[in-house]
């Protein structure tokens, strides 16, 4: 009994310890925190296969001044959309700063990789990481692309950023697929996720009776034109194959709708986040349900209207829906009727204000008209899209052989023969801008707006034996007097475009 009382007392005492107020030290002791950053902030890096990649991140520590206790790891894995999550992860360096050659393996041309830089404090196990998206490119990543018509067929040349010229690119890379009667090279300025192939920018070559998609990085033929449709059109006669974006942010454009103009009919491609491949569908009907229309090879788009085309037959604009062409709302037209313009379209291009367009037209009496409209309507703004209708004071414009609308100033450059003019949309005046050598005829013009640096006007000429490409550096008021560069020795250049990496 005596013993039991002792034990009981011990047990009770043990239990009572549970009531003892804990006076332990619970102050947080600061540990060495890490923060890794890259002052260049290059989240997306396009790098040429064979080049070296050097990255020097900044490491900040909260409680240490030296980096003796830190370990480093640079790890990559294939992050292309079609890749599996079980793709191998490769540590390419354990040095503080990265300096490696981009080579195969683990890198492959055209693939996307996720590069992770992780810094770990070996004393505490605390780590910090930053990420980079790598796209492995080749020398064809950026530059001007020239689509040429040669006696043996179509070909591509490129003018690279260093001014060097690569010729015969298409025929050397794709000798088994001759391109007959080339008409257009289409380049998307943003990536497209169509689940037909990996997400990338797009490049299409269109011929009079054929077309294809090239791999954007390798320039190898990827898909035949017909494969890009759910059901190929009965007549293959492509004029346009392009992507529109309704994004209001020019720095983060995404594809909203694909537009093909084939044999005068419009086909749409509904892209989006839903599963399944996205291809072009059957020809779209008019709102009345018939197909008696013929689209011009121009497509305009904005944030309010993703795509608008012009019909030669009814001489009017249509909005491109996903299952049919549709009328623009009646309230969209005040200065002229978008649904009943009544003029012949000569040319349509972006104007100097984003999402505004310049359309050069002529009436039945061969009088030229400038019609300006916009396809982005800000919140609470009236729904009108028509901006201007002016009878143009522009000599020779009905016989123009090339035209380009400036996207920095209110000007339209056009050429007849070897003479280039500059038309001002605000004052309705025209000045002679430049004269090319006798015997050369301007056949194509294109304006390249460059936010960082001088914007360029490119003009293509043909003298019967060779094609030439001139670049003019355009001043902030739209003026220039002499060309900056001239490249020659090409076949007949039928189209040009600027390829971004």
């Amino acid at each position: 009994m005596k013993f039991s009382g002792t034990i009981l007392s011990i047990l009770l005492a043990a239990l009572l310890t549970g009531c003892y107020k804990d006076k332990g030290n619970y102050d947080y002791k600061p540990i060495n925190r890490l923060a890794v950053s890259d002052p260049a902030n290059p989240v997306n890096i396009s790098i040429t296969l064979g080049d070296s990649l050097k990255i020097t991140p900044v490491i900040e520590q909260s409680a240490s001044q030296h980096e003796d206790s830190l370990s480093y790891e640079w790890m990559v894995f294939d992050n292309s959309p079609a890749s599996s999550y079980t793709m191998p992860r490769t540590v390419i360096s354990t040095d503080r700063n990265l300096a490696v050659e981009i080579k195969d393996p683990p890198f492959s041309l055209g693939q996307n990789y996720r590069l992770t830089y992780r810094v770990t404090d070996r004393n505490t196990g605390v780590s910090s990481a930053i990420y980079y998206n790598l796209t492995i490119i080749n020398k064809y990543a950026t530059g001007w692309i020239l689509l040429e018509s040669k006696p043996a067929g179509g070909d591509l040349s490129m003018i690279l950023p260093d001014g060097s010229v690569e010729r015969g690119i298409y025929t050397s890379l794709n000798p088994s697929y001759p391109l007959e009667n080339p008409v257009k090279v289409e380049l998307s300025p943003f990536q497209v996720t169509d689940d037909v192939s990996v997400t990338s920018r797009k490049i299409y070559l269109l011929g009079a009776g054929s077309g294809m998609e090239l791999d954007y990085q390798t320039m190898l033929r990827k898909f035949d034109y017909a494969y890009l449709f759910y059901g190929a059109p009965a007549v293959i006669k492509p004029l346009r194959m392009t992507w529109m974006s309704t994004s209001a942010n020019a720095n983060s454009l995404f594809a909203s709708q694909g537009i093909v103009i084939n044999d005068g009919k419009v086909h749409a491609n509904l892209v989006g986040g839903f599963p399944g491949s996205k291809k072009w569908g059957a020809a779209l009907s008019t709102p009345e349900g018939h197909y008696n229309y013929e689209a011009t090879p121009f497509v305009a788009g904005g944030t309010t209207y993703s795509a608008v085309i012009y019909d030669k037959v009814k001489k009017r604009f249509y909005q491109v829906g996903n299952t049919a062409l549709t009328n623009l709302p009646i309230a969209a037209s005040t200065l002229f009727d978008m649904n009943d313009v009544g003029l012949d379209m000569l040319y349509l291009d972006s104007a100097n204000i984003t999402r505004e367009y310049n359309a050069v037209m002529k009436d039945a009496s061969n009088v030229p008209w400038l019609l300006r409209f916009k396809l982005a309507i800000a919140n609470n703004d009236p729904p009108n899209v028509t901006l201007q209708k002016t009878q143009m004071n522009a000599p020779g414009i009905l016989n123009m052989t090339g035209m380009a609308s400036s996207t920095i100033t209110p000007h339209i450059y056009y050429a007849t023969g070897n003479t280039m003019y500059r038309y001002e949309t605000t004052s309705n005046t025209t000045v002679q801008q430049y004269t090319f050598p006798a015997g050369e005829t301007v056949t194509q013009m294109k304006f390249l707006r460059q936010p960082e640096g001088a914007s360029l006007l490119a003009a293509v000429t043909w003298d019967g034996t060779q094609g030439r490409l001139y670049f003019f550096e355009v001043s902030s008021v739209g003026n220039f007097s002499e060309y900056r560069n001239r490249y020659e020795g090409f076949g007949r250049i039928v189209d040009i475009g600027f390829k971004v990496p």
Partner: protein
Amino acid sequence: MENNKLIIYAALFLAVLATACSKEERVMYQQDPRVYFTKFVTNSDSTMYTFATGPDDITVDTAWLNFRIMGDAVDHDREIKLTVLDTSTAVAGYHYAVQPLIIPANAFDARIPVLLYRRPGLKDSMVHVVFEISESADFKPGYSDKPNPFANKYDRLHYKVSINDQLLKPGNWDGSLSPSFGAYSMVKFKFMIDVTGKTVWTGAIFPGDMQYLIQSVKLALYNYEQANGPMYDENGEQVVFP
């Protein structure tokens, strides 16, 4: 003696304390193996099959029963037992034949074919069979709930297969297809199948594919009308797509 008691009490006390240190076991299904019909978003508790949308020379086709087990996989094949509700009108061996009902070794699920036979009577009548999972030597019946009571008529122990040889209005016409294709008629539906080659219109259709189907039938109807004039359905109404 007293020391022994002290040791015993101390040991008991420590044992009680030590229970707090035991590692918690992962909660796993430990009961009898069971099996149930997998519920998918489409055709979740029934399938309606028609021979009418396929080629005329097809006499046998296949529907599928999807099963999933409760409990762990084992290293040998296991048998599922199905019975047929008395309300069923399809005749086993004549209208349909269920293939061996086996959950393979090391598998957690199985997709088992049911052969469907094209019989003359299906032209003017529809037959059906409702399967019910019964207890077999290897499995007891599993979940008996309806995960989506609004969409499911049958629980996870029952599955219905209906068979016919008629061009019946798809069950999702009014809900999903009519906004794109308008009012249903047999002539219109047959035309849609002929143009697109698509025979199954129930279930999910991706938006891109749906746009193409709409564009295709519109263009085909336009071409038909250009060659033949308006198309009329079995009710005398002109076939149109909105």
